[in-house]
């Protein structure tokens, strides 16, 4: 699956979609494929302040627990509650229905620390 060109990416395989003062966050197709069948996602609480690249939760596959890092800092304003009953949405549609949480940006300049789709592609295919 190609990386959507309109998103920004972290080296830890998360994506960010900037929507004005907020940003939507998820994990990349490469990440979901590496993890395998996802059975549980633990997300930060709504209202929590999170720092860019900080550890904010876990993503668990059948076999393994992986830390979830946020590619962007801010206040969590919404989480994808549908994942509680359907964590496999992250596998099926990592850039759509499998989104994780939405943050109100603290510092829009943090996007400068992220990668373009083309640059992320190089990391993911190394």
């Amino acid at each position, binding site marked *: 699956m190609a990386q959507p060109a309109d998103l920004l990416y972290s080296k830890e395989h998360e994506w960010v979609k900037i929507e004005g003062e907020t940003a939507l966050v998820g994990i990349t197709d490469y990440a979901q494929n590496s993890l*395998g*069948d996802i*059975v*549980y996602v633990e997300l930060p609480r709504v209202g929590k302040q999170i720092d860019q690249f900080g550890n904010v939760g*876990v993503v668990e596959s*059948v*076999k393994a*627990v992986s830390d979830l890092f946020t590619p962007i800092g801010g206040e969590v304003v919404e989480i994808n509650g549908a994942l509680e009953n359907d964590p496999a949405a992250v596998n099926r549609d990592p850039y759509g229905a499998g989104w994780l949480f939405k943050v109100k940006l603290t510092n829009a300049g943090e996007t400068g620390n992220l990668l373009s789709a083309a640059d992320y592609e190089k990391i993911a295919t190394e």
Partner: protein
Amino acid sequence: MTASTDLRRTALHDDHARMGARMVPFAGFLMPVQYAGVLREHDAVRHRAGLFDLSHMAQFVLEGERVAEWAETLTINAVGSMKPMQARYNIFCNAQGGAHDDTIFYRLDGRWLLVVNGANAEKMWAHLQANRADDVRLTNLHGSRALIAIQGPKSVEMLQPHTNVDLANVKYYFCAEGSVYGHPAVIARTGYTGEDGFELFVDGEHASEIWNALLRDHAQDGLEACGLGARDVLRLEAGMPLYGHELTEEITPVQAGLQWALKTAKPEFIGRNALIEQMERDDYARVVGLVMEGRVPAREGYKVFLGDREVGEVRSGSMAPSVGGKNIATALVAKDAATVGTVLAVEIRGAKHDATVVQLPFYKRAK
């Protein structure tokens, strides 16, 4: 990290690589952990059939008139009473009753096959050598003989057209010597998934042909190549111990709930006195099954509580598709926390999650 070049490869390594399996180090070998995905492979085994490469497990051949008599002194289960072509689960213990390894003996024509866990292969070979009898000949085929398992309700119909053995005559935990796709094989009705199925002991040089032919001929019937990831979920659901988790040098077969395999009527074997004493005291921590209440999976090493008191730890855990998608686990807990129906709590990242003690196995196939 161990470089992948240091790892041994099974006879099927190139097939796994060609098929795009995800390879991981396991028991000193580079082994497939998954092909299409753990859940899809699990589904194939429960409803159709799955094919596994288990060539990392070690095959030892035991020969001589006194093999059974000798093996009785090293193991907790009966060996001498095995019928020709019978297979039997057995455990080698240390003097304290802890488990060196859990194994299967196969009584073949004129020789015995002993299959031990890959991770314990060197330890077990050394143990057999250290306890060897003059008139028992031991041959280590680890790495040269292959082991392919076909497991699932369709195993008989998929395998039958390709073997000269009438599989209907091979009962559960028995085996036959014959051929598969024209190549010599020991065909055993054994497995580690909780389903019907066969384990095929074949020469490494024939493994690839058999593996690819079965997939070629039965992919349309739903046969899937499966990795060790699916195998671990399948065995956990079926309540089967995995060495290093439910059984260790410290965790005895009595603690693991394997008393059915312990024949204390045998006059002398390593670990006998310790195991009898442990059973009589009956105060030991024991392995129980847990079903988690919530959606958070329990994992190995997580602490287990009864009220505020820490009573043990999780030994294996997984989401279990055949247990309604619930999270299941085994845990080694204190006796007073081990009664079926007791509600315990598993501590996961600082929060306690309820889990109920249940009877093992979690899953039993319809006969």
